[in-house]
Each structure stands twice: as C-alpha cells, then as structure tokens.
C-alpha cells in the first residue's frame, strides 16, 4: 500500500491574483509530486495541497519566499489513515 508517512496537507491563503499565480506555478512543478485537494482559484479562497515528505521543506521555503501565508491542515496524513483503518477494523471485529 502507498505510504503517506510525513505527508502534510497545507492550507495556503493567496491574498491577491499575483499570489494565486504563484501557487499555480507551484502546481506546475511536477517533480514535487504535489496533490492539490483544492486548487488555486481566486484570492481569499483556501488552497489545500498534500505535500509528500520529501517536498515539504522545498514547498514551505517557496511559500515563505513569496510571502504566501499557510497553515498545516494535516500534520501527518498517515496518522489519519491509520486511525481510519483502526476504526474500520474495530467495527469488523
């Protein structure tokens, strides 16, 4: 199974059209293997992106360098998935 240990979901806030465009540029960086849960649309709308562990540092540096504010929405995706699995298994047992 795919492992999501260390993957984080960041909620980014783009204040204006230029910042939205910056996030769109981030979206084009395929090597970062980002998974946009809510893509960049308009200023003020939250942008949620799952960032693999290997890309977390690079993405945060990019965001900070361009003045984009963000918060960590999910600290470790795998932790949530483990909880989900445990709950399903508990139900079955």
């Amino acid at each position, binding site marked *: *199974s*795919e492992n*999501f240990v260390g993957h984080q*979901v960041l*909620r980014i806030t783009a204040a204006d059209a230029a910042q939205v465009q910056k996030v769109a540029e981030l979206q084009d960086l*395929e090597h970062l293997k980002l*998974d*946009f*849960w*809510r*893509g960049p*649309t308009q200023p003020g709308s*939250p942008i*949620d992106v*799952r960032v693999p562990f290997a890309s977390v540092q690079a993405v945060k540096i990019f965001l900070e360098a361009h003045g984009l504010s963000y918060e960590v*929405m*999910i600290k470790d*995706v795998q932790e*949530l*998935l483990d*909880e*989900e699995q445990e*709950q*399903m298994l508990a*139900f079955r047992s």
Partner: protein
Amino acid sequence: RASSTDTFNYATYHTLEEIYDFMDKLVAEHPQLVSKLQIGSTYEGLPIHVLKFSTGGSQRPAIWIDTGIHSREWITQASGVWFAKKITEDYGQDPTVTSILDNLDIFLEIVTNPDGFAFTHSQNRLWRKTRSATSSPLCVGVDANRNWDAGFGKAGASSSPCSDTYHGKSANSEVEVQAIVNFVKNHGNIKAFISIHSYSQLLLYPYGYTSQPAPDQTELHQVAKSAVTALASLYGTEYQYGSIIDTIYQASGSSIDWAYNQGIKYAFTFELRDTGRYGFLLPASQIIPTAQETWLGLLTIMEHTQTHPY
C-alpha cells in the same frame, strides 16, 4: 457482515464488497420498492450497479443521483448508502418522499468508480481516477469527471495522463462514464441529474467549461439557494452556490454539464462537508450528520423537480 440493513453500521466507512452486499440486502428487504440494475462493467471487470427506487409505472420521469466518481471521496459513497436506506425508511412515512416516489423514480449509483474505490481500500487511499490504461506506461487512470462530452478537452482538464485531472483520450473513453451515458440516453426521461462530490461545501450548477450562463440559470440559482438553506437548517453548515466556473474554477468535461446539454434541466453537483481540517479524510463520526444535512438539500431539488415538470 451486517445481517440486515437495520444492523448495518452507517457510521463507518465500508469496502466495495460491503456496500454491494448492503445493496443486495436492501433489495431483498424491499422488493416492491428497490431493484438493482447492472448498467455496465468497469475497466477491471467489476459490475457497475445502480439502485432503482420505483413504485411502479414504466419509464416514469426520474431523478439520477451518483456518488463516488472520485474514488477517494469516501464521505460520498458513505452518504449514498445512507440515502438508500433513508428512502426506504421514509417512503410511506414522510409525505415529501412518498409524493416524489409516487410520481418519479430515483436512480442511485452509490459507487460510480468501483475500480478506483477498491484501489483506495487496497493500495492508495488517495486515488481519485479510474484505473484504465492510458497512453503513458507510467501513469494509470482518467479523471472520470473530466471525461464527459461537454467541452471535452477544453481548459479545466489536463491532457497529461499523469495528472489527477487527465481528461482521457476521448469523451466517454471511460467505461464507467459510457455506462451512465448509455443508461441516461436509453432511459430518456431523466429530469434531474445530481452528482455528489466532496469537499468544500458547495452546490453547483452548469456550466463549468464555459462562462456563458446556462439558459435556466435564474431558476437553478433559486433552487440552489433553497437547497443550501434547507441543508444548513440542520447543523448550520454553510454552503456557497453558483455555477461551477463562477464559484470554483473552469472545469471541462464534467457530468452535470453533459447532463444539462442533454436537456436535463435540474443538473447539480454537491461538494460535501469539510470542517476545514480533514479534506478527503473526514472522520467517520461525521458520516451521518453529513448525509442527514445533504439529504435535506437533495429533497429540495427532488421536490422542485416533481413540482416543476417540463
């Protein structure tokens, strides 16, 4: 396994097998009201099932509801299961549901992307697409909600097979999409088409591929407003509403744009609940509240469809 749909646990997520087993039980318990149709098979050979809720008649006007076209949106399949049970519970008890079913049929496709859904349980919880082969040897699957023949391939979908919004090689290339297209066209009397997604709390109507307003935009906007008001009445969950392109972003090849262009006026898509903390990983404790509130929005649309024949 639950011994009946009464003992089925609606407050946890379930596998494809469990959901298909639930569907069989519901049909067995309500043979006069519910039947199961197989409308096709997936790329990997799984059956694609639709529940039909009908009190009789032939080719009655009908409402189509699908959940789970994006496989990782587990809250949608879980809500679909809850809706199915709710319909059987409320028919004959709730005047609105009874009246709707005395006049219209309801078709409910709980797992619209069975291959993808099974894959989320076995290999990759966050898989979104179908599991069909593409032109890329490295990348699998097509975004089934970019594969419909409505502005297919325009902006708002990706031509890269590795993208999560890859539109596929041609419109209806995905058998899961083609199966619905065939079914809806053959039926010929579908009056409302509702696709259910998650997350971000939106109720959307056409269009997504063009900024041109839908000819029925005024009415659709009013229906959407009533639906989100009804939805919010239960737990205060706030939804935004509007056309896809105005409310979120340009998206081509989507199901409701296709449905609307087929003449199905009441075409809507829901983006279900998220508290802003879990995204696609909504805790199972929120399944029932989400389904309950969504049901109120659905009822509003279904009732409007019934009382505004066209």
